[in-house]
Each structure stands twice: as C-alpha cells, then as structure tokens.
C-alpha cells in the first residue's frame, strides 16, 4: 500500500473522494436511499419497522413491474407514456371479461380468471403493438406515439365503463392474486420477483437483450452491425406493454374492481424510478437491479411522507422535484466521467 502512495501523488482518499467514486459508479440512488431512510426514521417512529417495510415492499410491486417495462423503452432511447393507460385498459377489459365469464359459468372460477387475465393482458399488449408499429415501422417519435396512445387507450377505457368501476369478478381472484400468500410472502411480491429475475436474465444473458442497449446507444452503429433495429424497437414496446398489463391485472385483483383511472401517475413514477436508478434518457445505459431499487425508493418516499402526514398535493411536488434532481445528478455524473478520460 505504502509503495503505491509513493509512486503516484494519488488524490487524497478521504471521505469526499469515496463519496465521489461511489457517485460516479452507482449514481445518485444510494445517496437518496440513505437520506430518505434517515429523514423518515426521524420523522416517524413507525417508519423503520418490519411491518411498515413489508408494506412498502407490497405496495411497490405494481410500480416495480411497470418500471421494468419502462426501462426497455428508455434503454432504446424512447419513452412509454402510455403505461398508465395500459394499466387502465387492462384493468377494465380484464375485469369485464372475467365478470362476464363468471356470470355465464358461475362454477368454472379458474376458467373465468384465466379468460379475464388473458383478455386484459391481450388488450394491454394491443396498445403496445400500436406503439411498436408507430415507432418501429412509421418512425413516429416515441414521445408522440405513446402520448397519443395514452389518450386513445384512456378514452376507450372510459367509454367501455362510462367511468364507473367494473364489479362482478369472482372473489377468489382478489383473494389469490391480490392478497394471496406463499411461504409467508405475498403472491404479488413473488410475481414481481420472478419478473425481475426474468428481465435481468433476458437483458444480460441473451442476444436480444444486448441489442436493446446497442439500438439505444447508437442506432446507426447497430444497423451497420447487422442488427434488426426495427424488430428490436417493436419488441421494446411490446415488452413495456406486457409488463404494464401484468401490473394492471395484479392491481385489479388488489382493488377487486376494474377501474379506468388506475395508473394515472404511472408514466411519471415509472420514468422517475428508472432515471433515479441511473437509466439514461439518451438511451443505452441502465441496469435491471437498479430499476428495482428505484421503484422501491419511490414507494418508500411516498410511504414515508404518508407516515409523516405530508398531504398528497405536496407529495406530487416532492416526486416531480426528485425526478428533476435525478436528471441533474445524471448530468453532473456524466461530466465527472468525461473528466476521467485519459
């Protein structure tokens, strides 16, 4: 150790050096997590309890799954602003199909559940197909395409329900997929964990996974390397929609009704979760495990603010500010990295 110090007049390895190194390596999320844990522990006695933290885990499932999908869109240099609508249309169509099937065959509960889930997820994925065709085939910017589809989908969901919640699903659906338990852990948490692991493997261990990074990092270089960039973009929006749709069906189970206005805050929250987790808005950079943490962090902050009796209006202010702060931190980090060239 000593010899190294003599060789190079190395920068001082004090606290600020390590903080900076951590920041460059991991981004802003670890700092935010630590700050949030300290602040909320001080603000409320109930915050740092097993009961509350397991609550946070359960509540964060839906955002986490949606954020995993959002990550694909961001990785390829786009957005998916229609994730909220996908949740809504999945919830409405799924609940209506399930209720109808249950009314027709009151004895075949598993069949009704299966039909409902399939119909709901199918409807959500259909929005993703539209996004994918628009972005990949017609070259519409992801911003406009998904913004447009958000309005289209939301309109359809409201039209189908008249703005009224959809009732009539079998009780078992909510009992299993909303509140079910396996080995003492809520079933939605299991599902989210499995999806996170699958996404991790897909992104890191398969060829197609690597192509998302390549297309987002430099679409021209990807094309000249023989990658089917259109297909990759198309798959991106299908995956984003599929994950949002799964979240939609889980949320429907939790609420026991199909509702058109679930998920309104999802686009902002899922993008915030990804960006705070270091997913680049310019595409090509992002890690699955960080996105999981990012989603946990957002829900943790919301939970902490609830316990500290901060009203929902002020919570919106905090969330928006956090998103912008994360982007600024990302810019600063890029500058540090640029300074690290040799």
């Amino acid at each position, binding site marked *: 150790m000593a010899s190294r110090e003599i060789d190079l007049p190395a920068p001082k390895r004090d606290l600020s050096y390590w903080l900076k190194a951590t920041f460059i390596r991991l981004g802003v999320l670890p700092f935010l997590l630590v700050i949030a844990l300290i602040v909320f522990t001080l603000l409320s006695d109930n915050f740092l309890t097993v009961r509350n933290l397991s609550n946070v885990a359960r509540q964060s499932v839906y955002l986490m799954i949606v954020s995993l999908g959002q990550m694909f869109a961001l990785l390829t240099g786009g957005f998916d602003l229609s994730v909220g609508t996908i949740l809504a249309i999945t919830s409405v169509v799924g609940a209506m199909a399930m209720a109808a099937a249950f009314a027709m065959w009151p004895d075949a509960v598993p069949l009704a559940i299966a039909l409902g889930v399939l119909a709901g997820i199918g409807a959500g994925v259909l929005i993703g197909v539209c996004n994918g065709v628009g972005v990949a085939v017609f070259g519409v910017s992801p911003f406009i395409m998904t913004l447009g589809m958000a309005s289209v989908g939301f309109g359809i969901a409201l039209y189908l329900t008249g703005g009224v919640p959809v009732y009539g699903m079998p009780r078992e659906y909510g009992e299993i997929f909303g509140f079910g338990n396996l080995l003492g852990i809520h079933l939605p948490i299991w599902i989210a964990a499995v999806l996170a692991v699958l996404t991790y493997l897909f992104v*890191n*261990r*398969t*060829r*197609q*996974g*690597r*192509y998302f*990074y*390549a297309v987002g*990092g*430099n679409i*021209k*270089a*990807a*094309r*000249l*390397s*023989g*990658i*089917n960039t259109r297909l990759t973009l198309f798959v991106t929006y299908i995956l984003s929609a599929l994950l949002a749709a799964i979240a939609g069906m889980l949320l429907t189970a939790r609420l026991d009704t199909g509702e058109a206005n679930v998920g309104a805050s999802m686009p902002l929250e899922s993008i915030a979760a990804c960006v705070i987790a270091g997913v*680049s808005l*310019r595409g*090509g*950079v992002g890690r699955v495990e960080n996105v999981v943490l990012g989603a946990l962090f957002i829900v943790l902050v919301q939970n902490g603010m609830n316990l500290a009796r901060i009203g929902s209006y002020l919570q919106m202010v905090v969330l928006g500010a956090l998103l912008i702060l994360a982007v600024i931190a990302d810019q600063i980090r890029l500058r540090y*990295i*640029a*300074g*690290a*060239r*040799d």
Partner: protein
Amino acid sequence: MNEADNIEGGPRAGAAPLLQTVGISKQYPGVLALDRVDFDLRPGEVHILFGENGAGKSTLISILAGVQLPTAGEVRFRGERVVLESVHHARNLGISAVFQEFSLVPQLTVEENLFLGAEFTRHGMLDKRRLRRSAEAIIKRLGFPLAPSAQVEHLTRAEQQMVEIAKAFRADLSVLILDEPTASLTDRETEQLFALIEQVTRDGVGVVYITHRMQEIRRIGDRITVLRDGRYVATLDAKTASEDELVRLMTGRVISELFPSIRQSAGDEVLKIENLSTPNGAVLGASLTVRRGEVVGLAGLVGSGKSEVMRAAFGAEPISAGRVLLKGEDVTGQPVRALLNRGMFYLPADRRDEGLIMMRSCRENISLPSLDRRPFSFGPILERVAEIRETGTLADRVNLQPRRIERIVELFSGGNQQKVMLAKCLTRPVDLFVLDEPTVGVDVGTRAAIYAFIRDLCEAGAAVVIVSSDLPEVLHLPRRVYVFYRGRIQATLEGEQITEENLLRHFFDREAA
C-alpha cells in the same frame, strides 16, 4: 465597403504580424489537441496550414475564429493581446472564417444567410431592399453564379460552399480563414476564388489557408506552417518546399516507413458491382470489381459517391438500379445481416456517428456484429466467458491501449477507438473488408499500425477496399484506384498510373470548368 478594406489594409502591409498566437494550447477531455503552438500571420500573405487529419489545424483555426478559447497561451491581434470570446467578437475585429462544416441556415435565402446576425434595419424593421442590394454587390464582386433570393437548402454543395465563402467576404475584412475551400468547387470557381484571394491580399488582408493539395500550395501560398500531433513542426517558404519534405514533416516519417509494401495478388473475384445507382443520385451507374489478395482504393471528394457505392453494396443504402455480386452470388438489396453472413464487412467513416456505441464497453462494441454466432452465443443465449476471452484476444491483436475491455469507448483516444472498430471486423470470417476513411483523426503511430493491419489482411488472402479522402493513403496502398466524381466513376487507375496528378485531375469535372 471597398473603402473599408483600403483603410484597414493599405498602410499596414509589411508591418508587424496581423494575427499571432503565442504558446497556444488546447486541452480537450482526453486529448491535447494543441501543444504550445506559435503561429503568425503577416498582412497580405497567404499562410498555408499543413498537417494530417487530427494534427490540430482545425483546432487552431477555430481558436483564431473565436469558436473556442485556448486553454493556455495567448492570441495577439495587431500586436495587442485579445481574448476571442465568440465568432461575433472575431468578426467585429475583421476575422472571418469559412469552415468545412457549413454554418448556413438551410431554410433561409442566400441573402438572409449572408447577413445573418448583421441585418440592416430601418425604423426597427428589416431593410429588405438594402439587404438585396448589398447581397448582389458581394455576389457580383465574387463572380459566383448565385441568386440572392434562392433558398439555401435547394442549392448544390458547391453553391453552398460559395455562399459560405461570400459570407466571409464582408466589408471590414482583415483576416480570412479558409478550411479546404476548394473541396467542392469546379476549376473555374476555384480560379475565381484565387483571383479574389489575390485581390484581398493586395489590400493587406492576411489569409490562413488549409489545404492538402500541392498545386494550390504552389499557386497561392507564401509560407507553410506544418503541424503534427498538435505541435508546431516548421514554417517553410511555399515556393521552394518540396513535396517529399512536406510529407516527411507532416508524418514524421519517410513515406516508405509509413506505408508498408504489400504483396498483392489478384485472386478470385470477390465483389462485382454492375451499373449501380442509388435513388438519391449519390451513385450513378458505377461498376467495379474487387479480387482476393488486393487492395482497391476509392477516391474522390466528399459526396462524390465513393462511400455511398460501398454502403449501398453492403445493404446500408437503398439501390435503384444495377447489381451487386458477392463471390458470384447476387446480393443486390439484401440487408446488412445477409452481407455480413456472406463475408463482407463495412467499417463506416464516422466512428462517433455510426461506428461505435460510445457509452458501452469495448467488449460490447467489439462483439456486437457477431453476437449471432459461436463462440459469442449459443442459440439466443450469450456466452459471456467466451465473449470476454475473444474480445480480449482481439484487443491484444489490435494493440488497444490501455487494454481495458470493460471500459466505455468514450474514454479512449481517437486512435484507440479506431482500433476497437478494427477489432469488430475480426470477430467473424470476412472475405471483403471495406474501410471507409480508416485513418481519420488518428495519430501517426496508429496510422502506421492500421496500414500494417491492412497489409496483413490482404496478404492473408482477403480483399480490402479503402474509401479515402486522404491522398497519400490512396496513392501508396492500392494497386487499383477508382476515382469518383458526382456519383460516377471518372477514371480507373492501375499501378504506375496512380499519381497525385492523375488522381486530382479526375477529382474535378473538366467539361464544366
């Protein structure tokens, strides 16, 4: 406006330097682009800046033109220290620059572009009549065939170049900076420009002129300053300097050291392009053949079709007519993936724009074109251990410095980024390598290494096509050169015929001149 010229220039001819840099340096992240360069420009002279791509010429003129500030050293204008904070500031001092990248607003007209930022007003409103009159006066003086009301985006590249030059010739000119201004002009337009340069230098204007062409240096140059790797090398008299001496100063080596001799043989035909055209007219009826064991050069100006023809053959640009045969198979209009699988590899000219994924690691960049094959993957699953091993081996083979394959490409120097590009095309069996501007922005050492690399590929029996705007490169490596002009093959030169004179003669359209 002529009045102004006289007042500025007249009495100062022969006086102290008009514009001078003292120990000027420019540090970019990762690159020292200029290292304590001294340069001076006398009134009434044409001072040529000479050096390779990446030698620091562009950085120097961008500092002189106020585009960027130096990190050290100072700029003196008429003997007084100035800090050129902006292009606007430089222009107020009478320093005008014409860069290779145009600074025109395509949606505006010629006259609006000419006076952009210096519009005439009357009672706070734009004075369109005066604008028209002034624009006509400038264009007439230059003798360029331009209509003041034409929209710039509808002009040809040559015409845009003229607008750019016209923009620099303003009333209070004292220093004129021209970066390869004749690149897309015809002979007649070039003559007009030279006449104009003579006219303004008589008025005491100093001209900084970047060119690679010996003929131009002899024709209009007074002094030549040679830069290499960001450093000042020498200043010579333009009338007496020999070409050999210039090349030696520019590269730091004698030609034979830089360019290896390649044992070329003409084996089987690998690529045959027949009457190829692209829908945008960039390529018009081009035909060429490439054989195993030979290096073929494609020369011509930017936009002459030399690059586009290979891109079209590779499936990266659409084809409107003609055929492409790869090893006897018709592959016309096939996608990139199909061409890669049949053994063609194209490395683009612009690393940053379409070659590399800057924020990803060297490993991921190198393996990208071959993730669909062993050992990089097995079915859809990536073989990560094999990937690390293979890309590491290739990084050694191209001598990546530092050899850190997990580091992001952005953090490497230009020469090492180019090595990552070369490593990409070694990930799979390739019969035909197409290297588009393989030595742009790399240092001399890397340059020599790249030529040795090309020699090895060729002697191992592959066919190599070099698409290049770098004259020495096209002169010394290939055994056959196709010269492109406006989308057509203007000439095919073999062996002894490949001389600078012959090449340049076909770079321009004689008939139009």
